[in-house]
């Protein structure tokens, strides 16, 4: 299983919500320390959850806060807004210069507090920024792999719709090991290049690989080997100048010189 599959297996959600078994949790923590994208996926979900739950918060009864604070042996800190009160009555008694001095001290204190406040805000923003950058990198990655996939699809579609393509459908043969097998050859009539679309073939056992054969004057000619477990089942194989039919057999890894007739899956005749 690769990292992406691991991430999208539901383990992230199970772990964060406390539903993973202890073995799964240990494995997940290891994966997080070794793969930054696993860790990033965990943080993304944690933040989603935190934000969602904070939208649905229910205020506990007011007296509960002081009860808890007294239980752990501290005074509840009251963060009441600090109102700077001016007291005009003081002015005539203490004289103008002293008022100026007092006012500047108050202003200075206010400014220091404001600066502290702004500094904290700034630190907070930096942390949020870092978290955003992390999830941005993750998105860019996902985007890149989607683009690559898109390009593959585009190439396939472009080749398939080309009017020069001769299409040879290959249904399962009577002795096929899998009766629902099916594949289609797209044969470029000008370049004579053979493309293959795997409609349905079972996944080969390890050490085995499918091989396409062109039947030329009754003799099998190797037309290329291919895998079926790739993202898109449309592959470019060899150039075959002339053939009356195509067939697919299962061979050892890397292909054979002669087809194994016992393991023939599909065959189709060239009609043109």
């Amino acid at each position, binding site marked *: 299983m690769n990292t992406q599959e691991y991430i*999208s*297996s*539901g*383990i992230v*959600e*199970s772990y*964060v*919500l*406390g*539903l993973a*078994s202890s073995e799964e949790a240990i494995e997940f*923590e290891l994966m*997080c*320390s070794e793969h930054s994208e696993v860790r990033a996926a*965990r*943080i993304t*979900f*944690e*933040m*989603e*959850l*935190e934000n*969602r*739950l*904070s939208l*649905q*918060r*229910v*205020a*506990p*009864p007011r007296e*509960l*806060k002081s*009860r*808890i*604070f007294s*239980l*752990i042996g*501290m*005074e*509840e*800190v009251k*963060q*009441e*807004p*600090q109102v*700077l009160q001016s007291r005009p009555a003081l002015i005539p008694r203490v004289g103008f210069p002293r008022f100026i001095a007092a006012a500047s001290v108050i202003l200075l204190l206010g400014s220091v*507090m*404001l600066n*502290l*406040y702004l500094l*904290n*805000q700034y*630190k*907070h923003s*930096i*942390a*949020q920024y870092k978290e955003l950058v992390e999830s941005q990198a993750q998105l860019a990655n996902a985007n890149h792999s989607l683009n690559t996939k898109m390009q593959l699809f585009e190439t396939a579609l472009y080749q398939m719709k080309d009017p020069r393509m001769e299409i040879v459908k290959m249904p399962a043969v009577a002795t096929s090991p899998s009766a629902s097998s099916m594949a289609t050859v797209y044969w470029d009539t000008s370049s004579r290049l053979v493309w293959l679309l795997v409609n349905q073939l079972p996944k080969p056992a390890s050490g085995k690989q499918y091989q396409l054969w062109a039947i030329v004057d009754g003799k099998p000619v190797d037309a290329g080997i291919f895998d079926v477990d790739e993202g898109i089942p449309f592959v470019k194989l060899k150039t075959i100048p002339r053939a009356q039919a195509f067939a697919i057999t299962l061979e050892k890894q890397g292909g054979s010189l002669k087809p194994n007739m016992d393991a023939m899956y599909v065959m189709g005749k060239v009609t043109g």
Partner: protein
Amino acid sequence: MGLTVTYNEKELVAALKARNNQAFGYLYDNYSGSLYSIILQIVQNPTLADDVLQEVFVNIWRQIETYDPAKGRLFTWMLNISRNASIDLLRSKNYQDSKKNQELKDNVYQGTRSTQISTDAIGLTRFLAKLRPDYRVLIELAYFKGYTHEEIAEIEHIPLGTVKTRIRNALMQLREFLK
């Protein structure tokens, strides 16, 4: 002008570990609502939820040293403490006894459960309603009742492997709803 101190997560943890009162006040003001909501959904009774929330915050204060940022965010840690405390309460003998009494009372005086507020419409429960019934049951048993996968397999008469896959699928779906 109200000057309130705000913290980022790292600073908040550091301040809590340094036993800073103001940081604990900040923690309570910012997170008690979210945690209270999840506790209510599990214990389904405001009076009991108050007791659990109290226990949770006392435990957060006492056990902050054991919080390990490498394993998850602070909120996740607190959420799991809240869930565990709620489930422990549901399983405690006192609760089981009081429930029996409550049921007895309810039978005698129909419709006297005025202290019970409806928790159907809040939090995760609302999203749960959107899940397929067979998924919903599993999430209720696993997340809100705290049963292990093995226990659920026994209760629901389905293989352990199926329980695991279904719970994971259900979680992925739930996550889509949360977005």
